[in-house]
């Protein structure tokens, strides 16, 4: 599985839009890009996933350029409750049996 690289930490203020970028230069053709959120003392929670272009749900948007070597998670108008660690593991197709490589994640801190 291709590994991913993210910034270790980011800071924002309430009400701002936050964009977290993930680099995955060795992404395979069958890989999907997924994002998870983790609060302290809880397991990670799935947020969004995509293969290419843009995906939007009620929580976030995911932007994937044509070469798929990076992706950007966009959180609109963050609040204090969005303070968490965000991971961007790739979900491998075919023989990888659904396993993910989580990496170290990005600690997002939202300030009042």
């Amino acid at each position, binding site marked *: 599985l291709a590994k991913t690289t993210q910034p270790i930490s980011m800071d924002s203020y309430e009400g701002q839009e936050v964009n977290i970028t993930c680099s995955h230069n060795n992404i395979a053709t069958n890989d999907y890009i997924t994002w*998870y959120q983790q609060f302290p003392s809880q*397991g990670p929670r799935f947020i969004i996933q995509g*293969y290419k272009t843009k995906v939007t749900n009620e929580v976030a948007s995911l932007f994937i350029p044509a070469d798929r070597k990076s992706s950007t998670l966009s959180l609109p108008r963050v609040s204090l409750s969005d303070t968490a660690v965000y991971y961007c593991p790739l*979900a491998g197709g075919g023989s990888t*049996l*659904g396993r993910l490589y989580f990496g*170290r*994640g990005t600690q997002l801190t939202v300030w009042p």
Partner: protein
Amino acid sequence: DVKVTQSSRYLVKRTGEKVFLECVQDMDHENMFWYRQDPGLGLRLIYFSYDVKMKEKGDIPEGYSVSREKKERFSLILESASTNQTSMYLCASSPSGTGIGQPQHFGDGTRLSIL
């Protein structure tokens, strides 16, 4: 909603003990996973299973074994616990196959301390 339940939130054991961590999921998922999470290292995969009685090594299997006798239950075993196995352990499950629509669902973890 998918429910993944880990038997203990906190556990304290002694060096050399045999330790069992239990995980149960209620959504009939084929795949189950055990991770450990340490500060600054993210989540690292220990073992996973894609069917009953089947298991595959992850990235850090040394010192661990697993058991999957029933589809809904996946156990992590520390054969002889050591202090470097003090960590947060997370269990997850997912449906068979990969890609779109099949995210992993996690329990809330077991914080294990080995003294």
